């Protein structure tokens, strides 16, 4: 059977790689530690990036269902309740198909030290005295359908409602802390008078008209702040952009770590390394071959670290559901959805990470060897 004949240049690279691996193996412990550290940095960075990108993708898809415009009333720069007569006024604005007063607010639950979001849906399907709760609320209160649901009303009295049903856990990302109830119960609990709403949601069928509608509202009602659908999307794009928040922090520390390692390499060759290069040149290797070995040295470590870090990050975020990121994101919140996210494959992300990790390290390994690699071989003989 004839063996496959690989071209000489490929054979040469295999030999050079053999030498590089032998060379690295001489300080096996140190190089493995370096690789592990490197992979760890990639892992952390990639975890954060993969998580935020996935969450962003889902956020933007889910919030497609958000209202076209939400009109808030501002008093002295602060969000205040809005009078009910504005609903009719807003529904007459050109482009607006429907205006609906919304009732929602925050409830701090002393029993569980959690914040719940109370919301009156457009057509609440329960009876007065009933609540529909999100999965996080059910968890925090150990509440099941049929259980009592006590709350402290704004007037100090304790109201006990009944859990009608819990919202499916699969929708936790959007409903985990929700408590849905009837308008009457809401108004009583929070002492909100009958003619006031939290804000007003508008339906504007023609998306292109939204900016115009918003402008008109600002003109007609200067004490309001219209929040458009686009602004909602932009908020989440910005929060979960890889350039902001946590990502910057991790990115900065990653760049810093690579910088430290690269600096250590770039600060010069050890006497051993210099000697080794001299010997290679003396026995007949030319400059390109010596540099190739150095490049392989950098590439072997950084490429391995990059791929392993990437793989572990994927497993961490999308198989294990990001247990290491959880404490950071959770903060002090008690209610926390289970992040079973859609992985978004971004070639741009992978390419950026690759450029950030593999290239600088490989360069940092080659450059300091330049002078030694280009020196005349007879320098070794004279040493």
């Amino acid at each position: 059977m004839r063996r496959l004949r690989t071209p000489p240049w490929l054979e040469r690279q295999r030999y050079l790689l053999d030498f590089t691996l032998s060379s690295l193996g001489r300080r096996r412990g140190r190089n493995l530690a370096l690789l592990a550290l490197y992979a760890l940095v990639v892992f952390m960075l990639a975890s954060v990036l993969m998580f935020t990108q996935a969450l962003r993708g889902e956020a933007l898809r889910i919030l497609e269902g958000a209202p076209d415009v939400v009109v808030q009333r501002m008093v002295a720069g602060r969000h205040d309740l809005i009078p009910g007569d504005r609903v009719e006024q807003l529904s007459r604005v050109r482009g607006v198909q429907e205006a609906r007063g919304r009732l929602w607010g925050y409830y701090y639950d002393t029993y569980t030290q959690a914040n719940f979001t109370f919301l009156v849906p457009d057509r609440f399907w329960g009876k007065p005295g009933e609540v529909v709760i999100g999965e996080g609320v059910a968890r925090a209160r150990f509440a099941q359908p049929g259980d009592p649901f006590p709350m402290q009303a704004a007037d100090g009295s304790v109201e006990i409602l009944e859990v009608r049903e819990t919202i499916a856990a699969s929708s936790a990302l959007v409903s985990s802390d929700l408590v849905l109830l009837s308008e009457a119960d809401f108004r009583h609990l929070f002492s909100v008078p009958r003619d006031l709403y939290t804000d007003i949601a508008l339906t504007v069928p023609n998306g292109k008209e939204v900016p115009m509608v918003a402008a008109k509202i600002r003109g007609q009602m200067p004490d309001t702040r219209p929040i458009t659908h686009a602004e909602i999307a932009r908020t989440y794009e910005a929060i979960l952009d890889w350039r902001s928040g946590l990502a910057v922090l991790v990115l900065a520390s990653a760049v810093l770590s690579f910088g430290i390692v690269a600096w250590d390499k770039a600060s010069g060759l050890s006497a051993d390394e210099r000697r080794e290069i001299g010997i290679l040149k003396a026995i007949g290797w030319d400059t390109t071959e010596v540099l190739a070995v150095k490049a392989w040295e950098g590439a072997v470590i950084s490429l391995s670290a990059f791929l392993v870090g990437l793989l572990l990050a994927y497993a961490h975020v999308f198989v294990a559901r990001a247990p290491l990121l959880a404490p950071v994101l959770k903060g002090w919140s008690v209610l926390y959805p289970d992040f079973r996210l859609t992985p978004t494959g971004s070639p741009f992300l992978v390419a950026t990470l690759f450029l950030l990790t593999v290239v600088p390290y490989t360069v940092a390994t080659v450059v300091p060897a330049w002078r030694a690699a280009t020196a005349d071989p007879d320098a070794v003989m004279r040493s």
Partner: protein
Amino acid sequence: MRQSDRFLLFLLGVLALLGAARLHALQRGRERSEEVGAMTSMARRLGLTDLCVFTDARYTRHPSQADRFAPFQDHPTSLEHFPSGSLVPPP
């Protein structure tokens, strides 16, 4: 086995696992698609404006709705009061 072959095998192995991850991602995407669709409908039905991610403070719970006062309502220097406040910038 030759050292370079061993290394190349290792690389191939990791790349294969990454390929498997890609397949897993596609599969998860398919599975999750229905759930995400359901959440979109829910957002539409209930008129939701924000995801339920950062629930420790009011201005982090509804970032798209928060006003300038919200972070300071609890405490004058409340911007870093809650951990997730370091992740979610005030409006």
